[in-house]
């Protein structure tokens, strides 16, 4: 009897967590798969006209989705290597100095705690060309003799460029933080041993440092891929809520637009798009894991 009471009490402690997770995570997970196969689901009457792959086929043929897919892949392919490589450079530089190190670290981490919507607005102001002014960045470009470009409402490549710059700016703090602590945790004896042997700095980096921190680098690449595939609010911050009109929508943005807003009201299409996104991320993550398992030796 007492034993039963104890069991019952343990479940009581878990009850709130199970309740919330069940309603807002487990049930939705099943539901979203159901939605994605229900043809022509009506939001008001909650009825559908049948089941099948219609939603998937619709989404895949939607030019907005194709555009979103292209944008997302571009963002992923550009920002993940650039931000990881640049973060590595910054962390290496940070680990080689002593005075002011804390100050630099604090400054570099600042973007992590700021509201990306708010700072995105500042970026927009800096890059935007208006009737009054060409903007701060164009002023800089002009100083080097380049013509002004409207980065916010102008050509596609310019918009993509700002997008990538802002994304890198936003994701760097996390990467720099992880890499500096990874570098700090390398046993200094390895460097001493290498120094006594007269090892060149480049050889120390590629033969000792990089292999030592490779688990963390792969961790960053994997989370970086996942994060970049889910890009959305940074885009809204720069180009506004109507991303389709700006031609800068992302896959997550497409999902939300299908769900809500001027073009919304289609949870079935949203579900199909979300599952497609999930499949892509899953595949890429698996590939990443396989590569990292082959390259990380301890």
């Amino acid at each position, binding site marked *: 009897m007492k034993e039963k009471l*104890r*069991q019952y*009490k*343990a*479940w009581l*402690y*878990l009850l*709130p*967590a199970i309740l*919330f*997770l069940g309603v*807002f*995570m*487990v049930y*939705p*997970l099943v539901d*979203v798969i159901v939605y994605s196969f229900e043809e022509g689901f009506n*939001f008001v009457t909650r009825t559908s006209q049948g089941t099948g792959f219609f939603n998937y086929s619709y989404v895949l043929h939607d030019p907005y989705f194709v555009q979103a897919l292209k944008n997302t892949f571009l963002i992923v392919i550009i920002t993940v290597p650039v931000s990881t490589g640049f973060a590595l*450079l*910054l962390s290496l530089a940070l680990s*080689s*100095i002593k005075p002011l190190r804390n100050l630099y670290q*604090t400054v*570099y*981490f*600042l973007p992590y*705690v*700021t*509201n990306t*919507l*708010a*700072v995105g*607005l*500042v*970026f927009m*102001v*800096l890059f935007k060309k208006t009737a*009054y*002014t060409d*903007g*701060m960045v164009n*002023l800089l470009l002009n100083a080097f003799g380049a013509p002004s470009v409207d980065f916010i409402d102008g050509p596609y490549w310019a918009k993509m460029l700002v997008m990538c710059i802002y994304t890198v*700016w*936003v*994701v760097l703090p*996390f990467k720099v*933080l992880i890499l500096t602590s990874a570098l700090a945790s390398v046993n200094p004896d390895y460097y001493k041993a290498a120094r006594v042997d007269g090892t060149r700095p480049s050889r120390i980096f590629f033969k000792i440092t990089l292999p030592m921190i490779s688990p963390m680098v792969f961790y960053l690449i994997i*989370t970086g891929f996942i*994060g970049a595939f889910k890009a959305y*609010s940074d885009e*809204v*911050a720069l180009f*506004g*809520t109507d991303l389709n009109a700006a031609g800068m929508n992302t896959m997550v943005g497409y999902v939300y637009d299908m*769900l*809500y807003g001027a073009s919304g009201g289609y*949870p079935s299409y*949203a579900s199909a798009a*979300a599952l497609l996104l*999930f499949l892509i991320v899953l595949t890429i993550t698996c590939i990443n894991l396989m590569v990292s398992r082959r390259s990380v030796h301890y």
Partner: protein
Amino acid sequence: MATENATFSGTASTDFTGAVKRRRIIRQALLYLFLTVWAAAVLFPFYWMVLTSFKTQASYNSEQRPKFYVSAPTTENYSEAFTAVPLARYFGNTLVYTIVTTGLMMVVIILAAFAFARLEFKGKTFVFTLFLSLMMIPSELVIITNYVTITEWNLRNSFPGLILPSITSVFYIYLLKETFEQIPNELYKAAKVDGTSDFKYLRRVMIPIARPTLVTIAILKVIECWNSYVWPRLITDKPEYFLVSNGIQEIREHGFGRDNIPAMMAAVVVISIPLIVLFLVFRNKIMEGVSRGGTKA
């Protein structure tokens, strides 16, 4: 012994120090230059928003070439930000949302983590594995149904609708369970022998000992809440319930007659300050917490 003759001869030693020292100084200078350039790139947007927020709209618009300083600073943008758009309202909403969500989440995750860390019951391992596997589910996938659910419950444009889906975090339960498990089991046994109830033990022993981790989790959750955008955007369309992120987007698209950049910047400064202050106060806690496994939410 082949190396000894090749590597140093009698006079070489003095040259070594000079050359090595010079090279080291140049290297250090370049490092600092590189670091400073990026620090400037990080800080510049902050500088620009503060600077612009003190310019009058007229002077901002008349600056064909933006100026890096402000000759006649004005605070009128700040009063404009609080009067022309319901910024105070957004601010208050976010405060309520952040405090209630964080508070409720702490209760839920402490109870769950305690059950996993210290209580014995059938199926514990199975349930915990199930919990862990939930960590892999992206929020984008479940948000669709949650949107439908909250709409069906008629909770759109309400605080419960905003708060309910963000009350649990599998990751924080996991993090807290690990912390709880580091507390020696002997303490628990001793308390049992003394006849302390589980709940009293949790309240009097576990929570005080795990306080540093609890504070870290709370701060990370506060940051996440303060910056959340997607869910509030889906679930609110009345400005009375907007949070700061949605508010700033609303301001950008409809507020201040769209072109009053200095007023927008004032609003941006106002909503950025709380987190920056929080960061500067809890710098070490936040950075340590994030490196233990936080990812940008």
